[in-house]
């Protein structure tokens, strides 16, 4: 069971790739992690009014089963640690939708000592949408964009993360100090 008996990367199973892409596009599960103030627009999104479950999306409490990480707004270093660990817990085709101005350039917190500017230095971003905060319609447009990218196989944030891991790791270590994973994350790594 543990092996890659149907791995999307394996050449012999290239045949299934379109099928899996279609399935991935149609069933995107969100990490239930409200990282910022945009978290307030997540409930309307998943509840009756906008109901993204129509697209097969739903918030999933366990990161192990999730595909899409909505970075809902600004990210503080304290949260970023958790975001990184959660992101690394997610199994591999995984996507990040950065939500609002703040992950792009710091937003209104551009001079705040506790907000990360330019999130894509630390984790890869697949889709970025503007707004403070973005309306649910705008988020849904972002989701449509990510679906399109998944279908075309362009949503490769996870692959970039894997390939440039040292670079991301270096930036993370610069921000948090060396050995933060061992020091801080070890305590909650197993069950975050």
């Amino acid at each position, binding site marked *: 069971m543990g092996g890659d008996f149907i791995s999307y990367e394996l050449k012999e199973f290239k045949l299934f790739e379109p099928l899996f892409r279609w399935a991935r596009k149609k069933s995107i599960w969100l990490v239930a992690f409200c990282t910022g103030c945009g978290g307030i627009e997540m409930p309307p999104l998943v509840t*009756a*009014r*906008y*109901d993204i479950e*129509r697209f097969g999306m739903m918030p999933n409490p366990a990161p192990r089963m999730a595909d899409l990480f909505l970075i809902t707004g600004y990210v503080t270093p304290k949260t970023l640690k958790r975001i990184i660990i959660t992101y690394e817990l997610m199994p591999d085709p995984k996507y990040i939708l*950065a939500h609002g*101005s703040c992950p*792009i*350039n*710091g*937003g*209104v917190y*551009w*001079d705040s000592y506790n907000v990360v500017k*330019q999130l*894509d230095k630390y984790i*890869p*971003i*697949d*889709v*970025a*949408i*503007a*707004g*403070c905060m*973005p*309306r649910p*319609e*705008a988020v*849904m*447009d*972002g989701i*449509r*964009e990510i679906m399109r*990218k998944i279908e075309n196989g*362009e949503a490769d*944030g996870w692959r*970039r993360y894997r*390939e*440039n891991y*040292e*670079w991301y790791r270096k930036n993370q270590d610069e921000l948090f100090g060396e050995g933060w994973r061992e020091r801080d994350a070890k305590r909650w790594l197993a069950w975050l």
Partner: protein
Amino acid sequence: MTMPARVVGEEKVKLKKSFVKPWIGIKYLFKKPVTIKIPFEKIEPAPKYRGFHTLDWKKCVGCNFCGQICPARAIEMTWLEVEGKMEKRPHPKIDYGRCTFCQFCVDVCPTGALGFTESYILTTDGTEDALELFNWVPIHPDKVRELNEAYGDYRFPVVRIEKLGDGTYRYHLRNGEVFEFKILGYGIRPPKKPTPAKPATEATANKETTKPAEKKESKPAEKKE
């Protein structure tokens, strides 16, 4: 100041628990859902919803009030050159990686040059080229309105911003029109020499503008090799 009957009796607040009553909730199985089926139905944002900016370049006097009031310092006065002619006044360049859409800038604008539309959707993939869209000099309100009426989906009026080497920016509008101008420098004071060579006074500002771009481009490239 206190009023009579300010505290209500417990009996009015308390409820009785029931096993059966919740079953009434099932009636909604047969009622119409309240969902708005977004790709098929549309919600119009309210009139005067605070969306993206517009700028009447003719009216703008470059007073930098907008830049001063902006809580995110998203606004930066920019000296532009359109069709070889330098604009007399600097114009605001707005960074949507900063903007909070409070529109205080619109409120303080003394000439009414800066305005806003209801457009609010700007979706990009996170690449460096796409993020250029987040930093623009707003275009004329009539143009934005025309595009909005043509498409009616409240998207950002520009699809792609092409940045050429010598500071020339090319806006590809949604209807295929191309709009080109050149950024000469930043700040309130006009750049010393409106030539492609970097003006001495604005060297720091200029350097900082280009820096994130370079940095980001360099990193995934070097890793992928």
